[in-house]
């Protein structure tokens, strides 16, 4: 699983304004990288424009990609991407483009974290008009590279993953434990069989009151 880009934008009235971006294009061939980067920048802005204030979304990029399907890339480079976007109530937004394997929850955690840090470091007055050169925020690259491994970066993912593993082990152990001993289905059918065809013990006396009892 991989993260490809991480960008911070400001959602303006009509347009989204890119404030800072970080890219990891090491998985693409050298010659394609610049066009891909452009493409991702464009997509990020587009998504922010389309996302309402105060919401999060995950957009399967294939649809968007079809719109822009000029021969920027060769067909064999077509991959599936997911864009995760978070537009805050104050219009500060972040977009991370990842592959489909990357867990969604971690992305949103990342976006929350990045935006919070950014909003503390960079004055809100600079948001509507800033651009990557003017904005003084250096941590984006670090975050992008750190979060390439979601487990390490995100404590909760790590614990959740271990938990899920443990649950599976527990379930398997329980199953094998319950296998031992008599099969319950056998017991259910055996006991039903016992319940049926039980001839009553009384009224076996065939001769009743057949002779007078002399008192």
């Amino acid at each position: 699983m991989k993260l490809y880009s991480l960008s911070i934008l400001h959602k303006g009235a009509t347009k989204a304004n890119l404030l800072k971006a970080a890219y990891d294009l090491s998985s693409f061939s050298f010659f394609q990288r610049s066009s891909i980067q452009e493409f991702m920048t464009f997509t990020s802005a587009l998504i922010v424009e389309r996302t309402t204030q105060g919401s999060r979304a995950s957009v399967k990029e294939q649809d968007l990609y079809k719109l822009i399907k000029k021969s920027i890339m060769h067909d064999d480079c077509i991959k599936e991407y997911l864009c995760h976007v978070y537009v805050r109530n104050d219009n500060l937004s972040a977009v991370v483009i990842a592959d489909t394997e990357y867990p969604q929850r971690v992305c949103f955690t990342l976006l929350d974290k990045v935006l919070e840090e950014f909003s503390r470091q960079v004055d809100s007055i600079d948001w509507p008009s800033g651009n990557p050169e003017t904005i003084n925020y250096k941590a984006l690259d670090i975050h992008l590279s750190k979060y390439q491994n979601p487990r390490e970066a995100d404590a909760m993912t790590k614990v959740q993953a271990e938990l899920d593993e443990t649950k599976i082990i527990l379930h398997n152990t329980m199953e094998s434990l319950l296998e031992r001993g008599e099969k319950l289905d056998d017991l259910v059918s055996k006991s039903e069989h016992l319940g049926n065809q039980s001839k009553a013990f009384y009224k076996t006396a065939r001769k009743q009151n057949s002779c007078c009892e002399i008192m």
Partner: protein
Amino acid sequence: MASHLSYGRVNLNILREAARKELREFLDKCAGSKAIVWDEYLTGPFGLIAQYSLLKEHEVEKMFTLKSGRLPSADVKNIIFFVRPRLELMDIIAENVFSEDKMHLSRDFHILFVPRRSMLCEQRLKELGVLGSFINIDEYILDLIPYDGDLLSMEYESAFRECYLENDQTSLYHTAKGLMTLQALYGTIPQIYGKGECARHVANMMLRMKREFAGSQNQILPVFDTLLLLDRNVDLLTPLATQLTYEGLIDEIYGITNGYVKLPPEKFAQKKQGEASKDLPTEPKKLQLNSAEELYAEIRDKNFNAVGAALSKKAKIISAAFEERHNAKTVGEIKQFVSQLPHMQAARSSLANHTSIAELIKDITTSEAFFDNLTVEQEFMTGVDTDKVNTYIEDCIAQKDPLIKILRLVCMQSVCNNGLKQKVLDHYKREILQTYGYEHMLTLNNLEKAGLLKPQMSSRNNYPTIRKTLKLWMEDANEQNPNDISYVYSGYAPLSIRLTQVLARPGWRSIEEVLKMLPGPHFEERQQLPAGLHKKRQQGENRTTLVFFLGGVSYAEIAALRFLSQMEDSGMEYIIATTKLLNGTTWIKSLMDRPESQAP
């Protein structure tokens, strides 16, 4: 702590703890490491009081069975003999002691007589020259042993025989002593009712013993309101009939001793997936049966025909509980499920065991032989042709069916007919002796002496009157949802239990006539309680009656009493005590004699 003893209204654990305490005190008297040499007969009852772990706590390192010859070697300071006061055992002990001297090991010897010391035995030891070798000679008064929360037994096998054949009232003395111990722990019993000669003797002894202790007043708030003493010979019919409760049938077919049953192992082999059934266990499967096992407590007293449905229901409940594991998604839920797992595993294992046992029993109860036998029993109980030679019995003798089966049937016919016509009796006797051997003459004599198989004295047969007045035969007994105690024999209400039932309500005055037809006096006694100990009865609170069967009681009768206890409007709870837990087979066996054997 035996949890199943605390369930009932009366906490019998107190009795058990008292017994354990005494045992501990004795063991501590013999300081140092010990080895116990057991009279085999005692290991069973003792197992109900103390396990090996308790003995180990008091430095018991080895245990041996009492055998003649040399004692096995053991590196212990003390050798303690746990024995009944019987002369033949004294001889064996003497042998053991003499063999020791030769080994020049300095060990201390002690004897613990259970349940009483005996001058005769000590005299014997003196004659053999070993009395001086014993440092501690004590008695361990083990009379009534708690078998379950509502059941006490002395496991005194020969009580009936001693009382009715040999005119030996030792067992009655022990009974009275046991009742005094009980009163010391649970308070003086204010009301005593009884029916029968032996009952009268026991009551007299109790009153006398109470007078002897006149100085010390018992300050315990009485737990028991009433004591009912019943002679076995007031109701000779019930033990002869084949029991039809689950526990009763287990006892009839496999025998329950000291709360354990040994079963053929084949059905209990763990079947693994796909494995052929090789390596079948050869050891009989031993199971403990008491009310600590939830499922067993539910089904033990049911008529056997209702057990299948109960097991089926339980199987579905357990199955559903196991399926719950698929609903456990969160870790919290899984944790909760897992914590229930041991209980569920135990429930499943219990279900598997009892399903197997029920299958084993069903094989027998659905056999033609069983039904034919039951038919004849029911014919006798309803008074059909009890004055003629019964052709089924004749056929069985001709086929050389087990002798005890024959004896049960002929005795039943005799009891239901108030003795057999001389011609009929002679016919049976002849057939039996010619088929099974003349040595059984002694047994037949014993049965006559006990009143089980006797010639008709007067032409009057009281049994039909008793049956009608006390409603001993109930048509259409409901086996699944019983409303009367007659379900335990699918139609026949045990006479002993009916008497108990009537005593509670409306009282024995209403059946004076019938009581006179039954052997032995009936009486009522009151014991004074110290001032201030009279129980104030709360509204709706049940009274507690201790019913003591002198001569033995069957599991079906116990089931019937439990049924009475849980009836809505009975207002009474019953605790059962007896000299011995028996069934028709073990009872007749105790009366059998062979010419060459000594009296048991």
